[in-house]
């Protein structure tokens, strides 16, 4: 508890993990992200909220260069991870994504066994020297994702056979297995029931001890529950960014206030 309060208080003194300056994203002729500046802190949960189509997912996907897979997408501006420009031509997006993991909106386990799902990342990054190492990593990741108890007896069962909530936790286990420094979550609970959502939220709390977590969500209650910092996006602009408590109780921008009180969206 004491720790908890300490982290709450020291939020502003934390290191900056990702710094974005003047980010513009275009899909063909559409200007999807307009001049966004944001600083994401280490060991903090940052929530992106805003109405549908406001660009929060797009911006999230810029942070580990997943937008590279979309041909028409073009990113301008400056995004730095620990002070290094991630759009530098020398950067290999594959290496970047090993450090900035991602969990998607729809649970998307590989059509392989639970074990193989979690072990895939560590395997391709050569993180395990032998089978025992790999078993360890898989167990640790599944424990962190609060899936170990349910999955330990059927590690060889297909991951696609799990329930929706379990699948999403499996995807989170898969993402944390590679020990990323930043975890991006794109509406991870939109397909889940309240119980599974609660489990995922608890998980996010735990992950914050080690990682910087960025979560896109449509649920303002969720943003209020899990995040320390909140960014409100509207029509491609970052309207307001600040302490979660301040955004929800005392928004500076009228648009933020309208959205939070349900007048726009």
């Amino acid at each position: 508890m004491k720790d908890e309060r300490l982290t709450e208080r020291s939020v502003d003194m934390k290191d900056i993990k990702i710094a974005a300056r003047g980010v513009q994203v275009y899909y063909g002729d559409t200007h999807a992200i307009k001049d966004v500046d944001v600083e994401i802190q280490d060991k903090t949960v940052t929530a992106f909220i805003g109405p549908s189509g406001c660009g929060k997912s797009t911006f999230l996907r810029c942070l580990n260069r997943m937008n590279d897979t979309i041909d028409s997408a073009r990113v301008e501006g400056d995004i730095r991870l620990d002070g290094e420009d991630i759009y530098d031509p020398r950067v290999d997006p594959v290496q970047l994504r090993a450090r900035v993991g991602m969990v998607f909106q729809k649970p998307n386990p590989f059509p392989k066994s639970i074990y193989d799902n979690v072990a895939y990342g560590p395997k391709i990054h050569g993180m395990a020297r032998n089978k025992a190492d790999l078993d360890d990593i898989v167990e640790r990741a599944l424990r962190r994702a609060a899936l170990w108890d349910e999955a330990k007896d059927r590690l060889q069962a297909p991951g696609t056979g799990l329930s929706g909530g379990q699948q999403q936790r499996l995807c989170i286990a898969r993402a944390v297995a590679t020990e990323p420094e930043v975890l991006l979550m794109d509406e991870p609970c939109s397909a889940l029931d309240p119980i599974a959502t609660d489990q995922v939220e608890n998980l996010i709390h735990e992950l914050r001890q080690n990682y910087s977590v960025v979560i896109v969500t449509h649920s303002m209650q969720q943003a209020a529950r899990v995040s320390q910092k909140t960014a409100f996006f509207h029509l491609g602009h970052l309207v307001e960014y600040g302490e979660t408590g301040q955004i929800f109780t005392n928004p500076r921008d009228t648009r933020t206030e309208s959205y939070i009180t349900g007048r726009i969206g």
Partner: protein
Amino acid sequence: MTDAQADGRPEGRPANSILTPTRRMKRRKAAEKRFKLYGMIAVTVGILALVFLLTSILGRGLSAFEQTMVEIPVELPAETLDPEGNRDPAEMQRVTTFSYAPLVADALADVIAAEAIEIEGLEPSDLGGFISQEAAAQLRNFVLANPEAVGTTLEAELLAGGRIDGYMKGRVTMETAALDSNVSVEQLRLADALEEAGYLKTSFNWDFITAPDASDQRPEAAGLGVAILGSFYMMIVVLVLALPIGVAASIYLEEFAPKNRLTDIIEVNISNLAAVPSIVFGILGLAIFINFMGLPQSAPIVGGLVLTLMTLPTIIIATRAALKAVPPSIRDAALGVGASKMQSVFHHVLPLAMPGILTGTIIGLAQALGETAPLLLIGMVAFVREYPDAPPEGFFDPASALPVQVYNWTQRADPAFVERASGAIIVLLVFLVLMNTVAVILRRRLERRW
């Protein structure tokens, strides 16, 4: 007005019970019924056509898998077959088939005498035509392979002549024989008498599947051996070339290539290539592989190359469709944990697309197996009696192919070849059904994993 609004019914809709359909509803129902009827008619026509085709081919062709044999003792006199008397096959080779033919006729005459068969008007020359000309050649081959048999009497199984074979299968009758210069009514009577005496028997015709083609005069000896081997070699060439090239091209185009004007043009033209008439590929093969590159004519390698060109668009289109059908979330998931593009394709996308790729490939192969037109242009229609060697040299030896053999036999005058051609079609259909079954099984098996 007020009533309607009170019911919550929109204006203009008459009040009536849901138990009685409205006129509009009846019309919609009728249209639906009509559409179902059209569909059923179409399906019935299709099934009838298939049944007709199968009965016609099976009716004509099944008898090709049976063959009438004459079992008679044949004397092998040493003085004619081995004039030097040293049983040396090299020297005995100088004795040609012409010297063996009288032995067969004599043997038949002996049997007729021994069984006291008397047929009015049976000429000695009829005996020569009763047994296939091929029989003498087969006898000679046997003697050259077993020189020690010379001087003994051999219990030989000899091919009956094509018309006699046809008579035993009911294709030739006394009436048609009376009009046919190749067979006489007396020969048919002789066949009846010999059958009664137990010298004629019908057995499964393995030679039809294993023997090479025979000349126009000897339909009873014609077989599919060379054609099956040639088709098999071509399929190997097609599989080895078209599968890797097609899959590699599709993966590149689907997953790696930038989407620009050039790839658009390539994409459209691959679809166009799939619609190019196959004979055009034959001309291309003739010009490039034979005239320019100097590969031998009638060779399975050239046929295989031409069929590869023809099959590639099919495989590429099927593979791209299979790759497209893999949900993008799987690619995202792989990239999200830090897999490279290549790893995401080979570890996740390709295994999921495999059933579709294999089905497309096997269907492409089946198409290639049944293709005739391009093979005509590169000389596969030639009359080939020699088996091609084992691969890889065999790819360059002349060979025939199943569909070309069908085409070849239907061109010949002797009606016995109609039976052979239908039999060859049955063999071809069996192979096609087998390949499609393999495609279905592979797809089931690979899909069942998850």
